[in-house]
Structures are given as C-alpha cells and as structure tokens.
C-alpha cells in the first residue's frame, strides 16, 4: 500500500511537470487516455476480458457532454455525472448481453456493438453531425484557458485513478481477479461470475465515458472517430504496451502510445506500420509491457548494487 502511495505521488509530480514540457492540451489528452487505459485494464488485466469496444463508451460520453453543452449550455457538474450515469446504463445493457458469452464470442460482441454505435453516430447526423463531427463544444468560462483546463483534467484524472485503485483493492477487485484466474472455481465458491464480469465492465464503461465527456471539451468538437472501433484497438494497445499486469502500467502505455504516434508520424507517413510492428513485438516477446522492462531493469540494478 505504501508503494501505491509513492506511485500516486510520482504521478502527481509528473502531472505538475507535464504542462511545462508539453502543450497543456496535449498533456490533458494524455491524461484523458490514461484514465481510459486504466479503466480498460480493469476489464483486461484484472478480469481477464478483452473488450474491443471501449470506444463505444468513450464516444457516447463525448457525445453526451458535447450535446448538453451545444444545446443546453449545461454546467459541468451536471454534464459529467450524466455522462457517467448514461454509460453505466449503456455498459450495463451491452455488458449484460456480452457476458452471456465467453472468450472469443465476448470479444466479437463488444467489437460488433462498437461498430453498431459507430454507425448510429455516423448516420444520425442531425444529432451528432455525423462525419463532420459535433462542433461548438465550448468550455465554460473558467476553463477557457488551456492551462486552467489542464489543471482541471489533471485533478480529475488523479481522482479517477485513485477511485479505480480503490475499486481494484476492494473485494470487487479481488473477485475480478478470481474470475480472471478461474471462473469455474469462483462460481463454486459462491460468486456470480456473470455479475462480477458485468460489474467490471460497467466500472470500466463508466470511467471511459467520463473520460470521453472530458475529451469533448478538449478541442471543442466531438469527432466521429471518437467512437470508431480502431480507437478501441488503440485503447487495448495502450493498455498492453504499458503492461496489463500492473495498475499503473496502462498510464505509461497511454503516454508511450501518444508519444510514439506523434514522433513517428513526424518522420514517416506510413507510421501506423511502425505502431503495428511495435504492437506485434510486444505481443510476441513482451507481454508484460513496458512495466516488465522497467521491472527487469530495476532487478538488474538492484542485483548489481547488491553485488557492488
């Protein structure tokens, strides 16, 4: 538990340094995706379910927030809880249908539902703006300044991470892991496996939707690609590349993913190929993600220090 406290302290320090090194909006975007990746890891790393449809919740959160601002000029204290509540409901329904099936079927269902919501968003142009995206999502006055907005996001992100940490440390978190390790045994010890999976799915959906709602404020537009399935792929990518075996791994993954796609795209137009190759290599040789690399390096250094 003390180590977690250090990790949070380190995160807080990094969050304070980030806007000095990066443009505040980009730093904010990284933090938003850090929330999404950590939330995804609750399903993937803790519960052992691979969802290829997290963009559904991200997108729906973003659209809710965008629409409430554009049409009603609603205040944030109303928007963010609404986005969360709506995504709890949505993840409840989608999750209920998906957890009936296991393994591959689960993955394909999440993926197909994602695609369904994408096409709804895409076709329902009067509501979402379709291909053109939903424009005119103005931040409230006190968040107009990018630095102020970043600070707001950073505080929210830390709160979200703390909440999610709390959840994975709670009995629920342990049950998620039990279901991941051995669903039959978990059932035989008195736990409703589908309910536990569903809970995990809903928790992740809620936080992902929340992040989406904040994302809508970032550039003042909700682009339709916010809900496209390739974004779900990106989210899985971030989670795995950081390391799904560790609570904080996906945070590193989000930073790395955005950093990598930004840098590589400067040098080569075919940069998604590099992303693909990195991803393939991680899957083939480095399933623990960056966290595993760091742990190995730390191990070597400790051994060397002990030896010297």
């Amino acid at each position: 538990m003390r180590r977690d406290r250090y990790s949070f302290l380190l995160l807080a320090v990094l969050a304070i340094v980030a806007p000095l090194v990066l443009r505040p909006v980009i730093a904010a975007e990284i933090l938003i995706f850090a929330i999404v990746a950590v939330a995804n890891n609750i399903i993937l790393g803790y519960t052992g379910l691979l969802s290829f449809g997290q963009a559904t919740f991200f997108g729906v959160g973003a659209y809710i927030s965008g629409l409430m601002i554009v049409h009603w000029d609603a205040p944030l204290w109303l928007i963010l809880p609404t986005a969360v509540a709506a995504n709890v409901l949505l993840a409840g329904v989608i999750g209920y249908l998906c957890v009936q099936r296991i393994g591959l079927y689960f993955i394909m269902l999440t993926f197909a539902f994602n695609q369904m919501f994408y096409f709804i968003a895409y076709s329902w142009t009067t509501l979402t703006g379709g291909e053109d995206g939903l424009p005119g999502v103005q931040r409230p006055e006190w968040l107009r300044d990018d630095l102020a907005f970043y600070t707001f996001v950073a505080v929210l992100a830390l709160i979200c991470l703390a909440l999610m940490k709390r959840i994975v440390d709670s009995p629920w978190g342990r049950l998620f892991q039990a279901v991941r390790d051995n669903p039959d045994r978990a059932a035989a010890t008195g736990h409703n496996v589908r309910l536990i999976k569903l809970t995990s799915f809903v928790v992740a959906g809620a936080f992902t939707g929340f992040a989406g709602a904040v994302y809508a404020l970032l550039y003042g537009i909700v682009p339709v690609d916010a809900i496209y399935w390739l974004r779900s792929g990106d989210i899985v990518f971030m989670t795995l590349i950081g390391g799904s075996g560790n609570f904080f791994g996906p945070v590193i993954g989000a930073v790395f993913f955005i950093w990598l796609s930004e840098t590589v795209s400067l040098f080569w137009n075919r940069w998604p190929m590099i992303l693909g190759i990195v991803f393939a290599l991680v899957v083939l040789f480095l399933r623990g993600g960056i966290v595993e690399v760091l742990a190995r390096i730390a191990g070597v250094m400790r051994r060397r220090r002990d030896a010297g």
Partner: protein
Amino acid sequence: MARITRRGFAATAAVATGAAVTGFPYVVRAAEEAAILGLWDFTGAYADVGPLMDVGAQVALEQVDYRAGDVKLRYVTRDGETKAGAATRRAEEAIASEKVGYIIGPWSSGVGLAVSEVAKNNKVMHWFSGGTEDISGKRCHRYGFQWAANPWTAMDAVLYAFRQQNANARRLYLFVADYAFGWSLEKYVGNLAPKYGMEVIGADRHPLGQREFSSYILKAAAKNPDAVFMINFGLDAVSAARQLHSFGLIPKVPLIMSWSAGVEELIQLAPEIRSNVIVGTNYYYTADNPVSKAFVEAYRKKDKQGNPPGYAPAAAYSLAHMTIEAIKRAGTANVQKAIQSIEGAEVEGLVGTIKVQASNHQSIRPYFVLKTKTPKESQGPLDFGTIIHTSSTPQPKELNECADIGKL
C-alpha cells in the same frame, strides 16, 4: 554510480528545460520568419490525397523560393489522419513546437472544421479548401478562410452548363453523400433546378465511404431519370460511376459529378465509363491562366507518374499561394496584419481572379464545368474533357449564414 546519477540528472534537467522552452505556448516568434503548417492526411480515409497535397504546397513555396517579400517561410507538415482528434492534436503541437502561424489543409471537411477551431483559439491563420460551406458560413471566424467555391456557386454553374448541353433533360435523380456537405448541396440543387427548368425526382443519401451502390442504382433506374446527379466525392463517386456503368445506366443517361476532384477521380475510371459525364470541379488543369500553366508544368515534374494535378494538389498549391500572398502584402509575418491585408483583396491565382470576401472570408472565384470526352475524342489517357463553362456568381447574401466574422 553517484557521478553517473548526477550527470544523468543534469542531462534530464537540461532536456526538460529545453523542451519547456520550445514547448511553451507563449514564446516570442523569431523575427520575420513565418512557419506554415501543411496539415495533410497521410493516413486514414483520405490517405490517397495527402501526399499529392504535400507536393502541391511544395510547388507553391519553391516558386517563391520560400520567401514572401522579406519574410522567410518555413514549411512543416503533419499527418491529419483524416481524424479530427489527431489533426487537432497535431495542429496544437505544431503551433507550439514549430511556432506555426499559418495552417493550410486538411482535406476532409469534418477535420477541417475541427482544425478551424484550433486556429481560432490560437489566433492562427487557416486556409481551407474542402466542400463545407460552414467555414465561410455558420462557423466563420476572423482567422478562417475558404478557398473552394461556395457550393451554391458550384451547383448553379453545373446546372447551367448541364442545361446548355442537354436542352431536353428535365428529371434529375440525386445520389447524395450523407453528411453536412452533401445536404447543403442537395438543398441548393433542389432550389436551383426549377430556375433551369428541371426537377429533382428522387434523392438517395448514402453513407460516406459507401462502396456498394447497386441498390441505389436500381432504385434510380426505376424512376427513369434524364440524368443522374451525384453529390459525392472521391472513391464514393468513383465506385458509383463504375457501378452505374455496369448496370448500363450510363452512358445512356448522362451523369453529373457535381463536386468532383477532377483528375484524381477521372483517372480511376475507364474511358468507357466516363464518356457522357458533366464534371463540376474546383480546378481543372487546362485552366487558361499563367499561374495555372506554371503550376501544371512544375507539378508534373514532381509527380511520380507525371500526372497533371487535380483538385487536391491544386487546392494545396492555392492555399499556400494565398497564404504567401497575404504575408507578402502585409510585409510582415504578423498573422493579424496578414489577415487584414488579404481581406477584400483580389489575387491573380490558380483558377483566375480570386476575390476574398471580407464579410465572410469566402473566395469569389471561378468554378469549372467539364464535359468529358468519349474514347474516340480523347487525345491521350490524360485528356479527360473540355471546360465548357466557368462561373463565379457569388452565393446570394441572404443565403450566407456567417452572421459576424468577429474580431482579431
């Protein structure tokens, strides 16, 4: 060990400071250098045009040797990914790290509108070339400029020219790409058709990225139209044309590609398919003016296949050209001054005279209508058609939705 750590720390600190300096948003710009960002789609749905646009912009900059009067020009590019999220992030990043004051591109309207917001927030001049009328309409602002013809102008020109060619045609069937751009063109065609003695007998909206048009085609064929009027673009238009041909509907019935990329689309269609087509486009490479001639020559040298430029590279060229003009006229890299210098100005540009309307930043410029050549008439694989009409009739004021262009 300790020494290494200390050195490591110093290095980290140095890097952090350096990054902080370059990355910090409120840095004074270097004197009289203007950085222009070409935000092109190298990946995503419009990955096909990104590289072409990059070449187009380069030609414009090379022609002036990267100088606009006394101001040095620096050209940087970023991948817009045809995604609003990525494009806005890249624009933000480039504004910060490259001190970009001028953005040109991207290709897609949706992404362009998002980037327009970034330009407005960061007080950066933005020239755009896509189909949306919102840039100079509902969402106009002082920093955003539209180079493409107004959709009203375009539809008026196409309908007029089609009428000249087909005196007896009355009944139009519309294929409309289902997004804001498609709807506004559909609206204008509906309003303008009666003026030319025609009527819209049916319209089908299809999603962007549609590749399977047979069902729409059968529906259209059932109505027995005098012409198929397409309001779609790029691969959608190409796929639709190809399938219209395989169903035998064209060339029996004329096809109107009302807002076409020109060369880039026509080159994908076999000559048999494009033998009875009216093509409306923002640029065609036989445009008879000195700027265009020089551009075509320079572009074909740079293009791998030696193809003439279509809408996309021409747009990129022209966006760069207009930006350069603005800076040159201002005589300084100051963005606000550049904007003031181009507002209301007339520029001899790629498509002829381009007048930048001060009230909504819409360019009043010629729109081209071609008639394609049959395989027999064609003088080679790149001889697609003849310009039969150009028009720069501006959109009636009462239809423009730009209420207030705003302040600098």
